[in-house]
């Protein structure tokens, strides 16, 4: 009876899901028709030197003119992107706005990302339900996959990044593909996603740790200690045979959670090597005529790491490197980039039982500290955040963070206007919003990690109570 109702409800929500997805597509298409009015593609928050389609079109033009696409410090993206998107930037349909084909491609990328998030959410939830059952905790979960997909699709940041002609939807797609592949244990897919994401924007390279953990231990689960406790207690009392069977099963399952399986990890490395060789070969074919692979690395990764372009953006690095003395520049470059790497290991140790959540934290941190952040990065981690709705139900300050995001995303264009167009403000005004935004992201990360750890504590309490009940 209950299951029937549940199914009905599920069908209903599924229908609702698809209507909302369609609505988001239509909304995007409507917005694509007003590119001049919105003028989003020239906003510093939307398109960075790395993701701007205008720069890509320039690079394509240079390539067509038999020059290196990286000449003149305009284009800093991947040559593969140039070959895929480049022809689309030139082609224009009569009576349609420019770059309409690219925009449609970005919309498709967004939809695919959303669907992958949904599938990842399902997978995570099934696994989580199983592990909770193994611990004997009954919990009703919400369909966080659907919600996360819709949040991703309807997030104004995602919409703006998609309509504003930046390539971040495609970068996001590959990152999500990595997570999806790792969750479903499709090792080649995960490796492909990881290689492509790293190739496109470098920072996803740190996702290798969550991916290894995902492949080794399986998706997010409560701390492994709990399973061990459970196993010991169960083996302690042997009353009857059928209980014994159940125990065996339980122990097996819990062992599955605990043992690190090496095979998929090795496979992952193998595939990653294969894919990266493949990508490099493709790149070298693409750039062979007018430049070299070395130039490509210099102009893409080098550009990211040395923060050459100091035009204002949402991040905190441009202001700093505009102010810093030249002879300190290298030192601070190292400091800023190592900042991300410093956090990788401690977080991996603390959250190793929740690799997907770890991936979210990594993405959030790197989007906060990366050299050319844009709203597209924020859209990605906000979408992933919702995947952990059940675990983060007791998150504090959610309302405050929400208001902060709304306020900052409105204040930032106003400050930019005050500085650039009116001349009554100055760079500090705009940078103030960037700092506030970074602080907000820090609060978000800290609070979500805190809520996750609290959730683990709660689970431990519940499972201990369960054990005591069983014993008594």
């Amino acid at each position, binding site marked *: 009876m209950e299951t029937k109702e549940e199914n009905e409800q599920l069908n209903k929500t599924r229908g609702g899901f698809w209507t909302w997805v369609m609505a988001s597509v239509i909304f995007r298409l409507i917005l694509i028709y007003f590119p001049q009015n919105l003028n989003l593609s020239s906003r510093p928050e939307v398109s960075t030197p790395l993701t701007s389609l205008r720069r890509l079109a320039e690079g394509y033009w240079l390539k067509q003119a038999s020059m290196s696409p990286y000449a003149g410090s305009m284009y800093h993206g991947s040559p593969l992107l140039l070959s895929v998107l480049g022809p689309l930037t030139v082609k224009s349909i009569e009576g349609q706005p420019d770059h309409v084909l690219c925009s449609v491609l970005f919309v498709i990328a967004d939809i695919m990302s959303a669907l992958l998030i949904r599938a990842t959410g399902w997978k995570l939830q099934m696994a989580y339900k199983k592990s909770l059952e193994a611990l004997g905790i009954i919990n009703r979960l919400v369909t966080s996959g659907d919600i996360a997909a819709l949040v991703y699709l309807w997030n104004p940041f995602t919409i703006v990044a998609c309509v504003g002609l930046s390539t971040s939807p495609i970068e996001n797609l590959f990152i999500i593909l990595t997570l999806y592949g790792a969750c479903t244990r499709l090792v080649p897919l995960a490796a492909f996603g990881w290689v492509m994401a790293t190739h496109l924007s470098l920072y996803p390279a740190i996702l290798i740790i969550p991916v290894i953990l995902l492949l080794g231990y399986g998706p997010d689960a409560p701390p492994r200690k709990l399973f061990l406790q459970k196993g010991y207690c169960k083996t302690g009392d042997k009353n009857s045979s059928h209980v014994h069977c159940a125990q065996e099963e339980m122990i097996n399952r819990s062992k599955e959670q605990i043992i690190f399986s090496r095979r998929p990890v090795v496979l992952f490395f193998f595939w990653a090597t294969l894919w990266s060789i493949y990508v490099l070969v493709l790149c070298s074919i693409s750039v062979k005529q007018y430049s070299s692979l070395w130039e490509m690395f210099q102009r893409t990764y080098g550009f990211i790491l040395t923060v050459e372009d100091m035009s204002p953006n949402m991040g905190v690095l441009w202001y700093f490197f505009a102010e810093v003395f030249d002879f300190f520049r290298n030192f601070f470059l190292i400091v800023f980039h190592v900042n991300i790497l410093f956090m990788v290991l401690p977080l991996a140790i603390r959250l190793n039982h929740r690799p997907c959540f770890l991936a979210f934290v990594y993405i959030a941190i790197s989007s906060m500290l990366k050299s050319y952040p844009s709203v597209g990065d924020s859209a990605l981690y906000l979408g992933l955040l919702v995947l952990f709705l059940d675990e983060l139900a007791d998150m504090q300050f959610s309302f405050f963070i929400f208001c902060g995001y709304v306020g900052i995303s409105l204040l930032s264009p*106003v400050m930019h206007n005050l500085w650039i167009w009116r001349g009554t403000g100055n760079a500090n005004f705009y940078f103030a919003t960037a700092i506030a935004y970074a602080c907000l992201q820090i609060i978000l990360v800290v609070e979500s990690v805190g809520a996750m750890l609290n959730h683990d504590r709660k689970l431990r309490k519940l499972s201990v109570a369960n054990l005591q009940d069983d014993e008594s």
Partner: protein
Amino acid sequence: MAQTETGKETAREIPKMKPRPIVLLGIFLISHCFLVSVVCCTAGVLALLLLPVLAKNTYISENALMPGSASSMLSNHDISEANRLAKDLSGLNLGLEDTGIESRRILARYLSDLGAEVSYHKFLSQQNHLHPLHFFSSPDGLMRENFSCSSYGVNTVGIIRAPRGDGKEAIVFVTPYNFGKSDLSETLSLSIAYSVFSLLTQVTWLAKDIIWLIADSQYGEYDSVAAWLRDYHTPSFTGLVSSNVDACVVGNNLEISNDNSVVQGKISDGFRRAGTMAAALVLKVTDGNEQWDDTLGIYAEASNGQMPNLDLINIVNYLAVHRQGLRVKVQKFWSLLDLKWLEFLGKTFELLGKLARSLNPDWKFGIPASDYIEGTATLASSLYFQALGIPTGPHGAFRDFQVDAITLEISPKVSSSSKAKLNEFVLRGGRLIEGVIRSVNNLLEKFHQSFFLYLLTSPSKFVSVGVYMIAFALLVAPLPLVAASLYADANKLDFGMKFDKSTPVATASSERDITFRSWKWLSAAKEVFVIHMWGVVVLLLPYLISQIPDLSPTASFVSWVLLSMLSLLILYLILGSPFSHSHASLKGDWAMLKSATISAVFIGLLLMSVVNFATAEIGALLMVPLCLMAQPLKLDIRAASLRSFFRVSCTLILGFIAFPPVAFFTSKAVFEGPDSINLGDFWNWMESLRAWNSATYVYIGMVHLPCWMLCIHILFHSC
């Protein structure tokens, strides 16, 4: 049992929590938010009233300006030249069209005789309309489409190349002149400008080019200046606009080549440019006043409450008062001058100031009551005109290109028809302009030293951003506190309810509700969002209504109101009315809604204070008390005490006044008398805001109105 459990839980948690002092302070403030909000709001209003007392005397901040350090070189010879021009211009007695062409030709001849470069600039007068999406884009991002050849104007531009400059900087002065039918005062302004111009062609100290723009004001002063500036800053190689204008002009044939060949070399039809503009002065002469000597009115407000650098006003004021002996005035609300309570307030402050001085002679606090009243009237008008966001003169067009500009309105004493008096007047005006130009000429960089954000309380007194922000900050400070305390209360309330309901009754779904209590604000946020969407719809409606031809303002206003109500009804039908909750709404619902509303108001006001401070200040005065007091009427009626009655009446009055049309009509009745109210006025007012791209229009539609609506929702909440 449940109670003991909670007890245990809290007991377990207390030793864990060791809040830091700053958190403790926050908790303290939140728990006493009622007292804090009363104190802060009162202090905010008081600080606003104190602003005229706190105003500082202006001073010239940029040392390079050195106003008045050189003696004026303008002589009677220049004046007589100017008089000759004026005589020639007024001597023309031709048809309307021909007068324009002929007087332009005379002007061009005079200018080129002086050795200046002369060019004509043709433009089409266009109506600018607010496209809501254009608000954040650049000023030249506005594309204008509809052309009509019927209304084109021709500006005449004279340029002097500076002998000591590199041609990279320029100073502009503008005299609006109606070539169709000009009157004496406009000719007077021309002759003042001409006298200065003729002097400047001879001087050797000029380091910046001088541009004299004789703006064709038959289609409005602002439009002609704005069109010239747009073309100045956007070089169009084969632009659509210019070709259109040329097509129009060919028919009307602006013949320059008829002039003698010597002159012809200097007069060009193409667009002439000088360097970037350091400053601009718009010079106007109005008909004489009866009360005082020659007066000088300064208008400085540009679009969205932007002001020119205070130094520009300072030098004009300094030179006008100390060198030329003009009486300088800025706009003020005359009706405020005879308000009784203001006089009382002024006297109180005076008394306090005296008291303070008697205690310690170093405390220079307090000004005479009459000064206070004058200051308040000026401050109020300064606030109002900044809040409107409509430029008060052609100088507004310069501000869009980051050029500091002001309009100088000189008016001679009436009955100064005698020749000598007129000459005297032209000499004074000319010397003032010359002094200002000489001062700006000394400038090495852009104006940056002094304030951009300030309010004037008299021509020589100002309130800077650091001071007036205090009043605003005090006013909005309670908002986040109250929002936080309401939010915390609402969460706690549910927490308590969880244990009130005995556990067996609680179903799985309610359990889930409880687990998600920290996300409960989502429904309130949804409602706030929906109402803001309604605000956007209301904002866009005048767009549609103005498309209907032949609609009187009153009819438009009524249809606007009706359509807005209709759209609200439709929204209710789609998304469910908040008044008819089918399911029993939870106790904390209204508190959560109020918390979300207050957050929205806070964000909106903060944003607006950055865009246009004056709007935010006035909006905060209207909105903040209402937002803080709003509470469901049912609760108060249930309580039925004196306090709740007082609260209800206060809230209702505030809610009535904060409704934008009511606020408009009330202020109109206060300032202009009750018999001047006309329903169509509000429509006209909003239309003018819309036509001038004012951010205030966006504020009213997207912050003020939705938040007012949400407060009304809270008032009639069924809790």
